[in-house]
């Protein structure tokens, strides 16, 4: 397979669980600085696709190239170190650590055992924590135990933990699930701000939210890509309408 300018190039990707193909011969290309939203009915394979890219699930066949480097054979932590960040569907933060500690631990230095022993929280780390806390709107909550945050704040904190690592590709699985209207709005602004220097893949159900943030939308169905393009284009696509209304 030839090299490309895309930040992420997924080609001929297939994964089968006991014969069931959760992802079936899928191709997906994401540009630098692009915010891509993946939509599709339940069981379409959206989360599985993210699992494959970040290495949580191993592909049966096919290739995932990140900046023209093959990712399918790397272990999870090496994929993260290559620059791919992943946010899980339910907020996944360290509940009994403070917000500051949550962010500090995510700083990409001292990642080996002895590196972690010698790690010092210096100005560089503190500045980065403050910068990220400002972005996610948690500046005045840095000392709070993160388990006490509201649901929306927990989601932002997890996004912040990813931003600490400055990933070139950020993958978010339903970031606004369970959020209030106001929180959704703030999240949309946050996503539009953070995709300026990096590519972002978002899985989302809320169409209003999708149309607000998406540069390009990919519709998945039964492990395959059904349609791809601008929001208007895919919404007008008869195949997409059929899948969403016909089921």
């Amino acid at each position, binding site marked *: 397979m030839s090299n490309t300018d895309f930040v992420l190039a997924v080609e001929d990707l297939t994964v089968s669980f006991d014969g069931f193909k959760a992802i079936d011969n899928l191709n997906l290309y994401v540009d630098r600085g692009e915010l891509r939203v993946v939509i599709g009915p339940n069981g379409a394979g959206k989360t599985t696709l993210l699992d494959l890219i*970040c290495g*949580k699930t191993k592909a049966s066949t096919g290739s995932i190239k990140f900046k023209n480097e093959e990712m399918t054979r790397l*272990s*999870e*932590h090496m994929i*993260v*170190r290559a620059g791919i*960040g*992943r946010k*899980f569907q339910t907020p*996944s*933060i*360290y*509940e*009994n*650590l*403070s917000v500051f*500690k949550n962010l*500090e*631990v*995510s700083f*990409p230095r*001292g*990642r*080996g*055992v002895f590196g*972690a*022993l*010698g*790690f010092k929280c210096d100005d560089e780390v503190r500045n980065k924590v403050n910068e990220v806390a400002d972005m996610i709107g948690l500046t005045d909550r840095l000392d709070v*135990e993160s*388990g*006490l945050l509201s649901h929306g704040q927990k989601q932002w904190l*997890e996004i912040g*933990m990813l931003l600490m*690592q400055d990933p070139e590709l950020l993958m978010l699985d339903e970031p606004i699930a369970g959020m209030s209207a106001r929180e959704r709005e703030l999240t949309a602004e946050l996503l539009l701000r953070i995709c300026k220097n990096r590519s972002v893949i978002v899985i989302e159900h809320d169409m209003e939210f999708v149309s607000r943030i998406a540069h390009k939308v990919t519709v998945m169905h039964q492990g395959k890509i059904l349609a791809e393009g601008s929001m208007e284009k895919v919404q007008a696509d008869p195949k997409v309408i059929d899948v969403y209304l016909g089921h």
Partner: protein
Amino acid sequence: MNAIKNRVMRGGYGSFVILAFILIVAFPLLMDIFRLNLVGKYLTYGFVAIGLVMLWGYGGVLSLGQGVFFGLGGYAMAMFLKLEASDPVSTAIQSTPGIPDFMDWNQLTELPAWWLPFKSLPLTLIAVIAIPTLLAFIISYAMFKRRVGGVYFAIITQAVALILTVLIIGQQGYTGGVNGMTDLKTLMGWDIRTDSAKYILYFINVGLLLGSIALCRWIQLSKLGTLLLAMRDKEDRVRFSGYDVSMFKVFAFCLAAALSAIGGAMFTLQVGFMSPSFVGIVPSIEMVIFAAIGGRMSLIGAVYGTLLVNFGKTYFSESFPDLWLFLMSALFISVVMVFPNGLAGLYESHVKPRLVRRKSGSGPAKSIETPPKPAATPSTPASDIGLGAKVSNQSA
């Protein structure tokens, strides 16, 4: 959970100083050498207990085979002492003088080659730490890289404990078998059976234990300690933040093994023998109970737990030998059911808030700074408020 964080935040030097005072000043003044030597023996289990605090409390990995590493450390030390005690003059009546007596009884006519390094004290001291740590590395690397964890890992450590016991007992000619290595006399010509030697060994033991606590404390306060806590909570989040989770668990397991081995070596020196009864499954589980009762999140608490359970064991097994095992299991069950963070957890939730209150008078500003926080409850805000209010009512 709050208590954990609080303990991480504050240094907790006060309790360290109190423990050091008790061990260095109070016990030697109050006890005769027989009792003090017993305390010294208990404290060797303290090494295992603080290792378990790091491995189980912080790392979330339960090992039911710490006796393996305690035993390996102890045996390495015992081999050196045994060789020194088996000089050709004092073993002249044997058919092969100059080898340990149990080898002679088992018709060995030559010292096995793998015993030779234990003729040298420096090599022995290296082996005390290196052999258990290496074994721990091999076991844990093989398991954690394959994502074996939880109950499965605990069962495997038990199996290792059983295997090692069977091996030691079966290879009587090389290991002394079920009797272990007895009649240990001198260390580089220094008679370890005298009272003065017992005093000196006690203080060396206490020094090493306090040093180990300080080392573990430093690790807890480093990013590695935070990561261990984070891993216990959300392993996937740590993994997907770019950390190789398995290597951190391997480190915690090796650390616990090395600490246990130091304890084992000090045990041999102070008690004067080593046998398979300190290696197997039962002692390994007892060691977990020490840590659990003291508090698996507290290094200091684990030492108190070890002392308390062993004092109890000595007292009750002297007075009511039949009752002891029931009492110990009752104690363990109540730790699991009622106070999961052990004695240290009880202290954090019940004693400390009162002390803080008394110290600060009725000044509200200070009590906000360190609000009463129950350690034994999960970190749901509701129960925090509920219990906190209860405590403050009691003390009002």
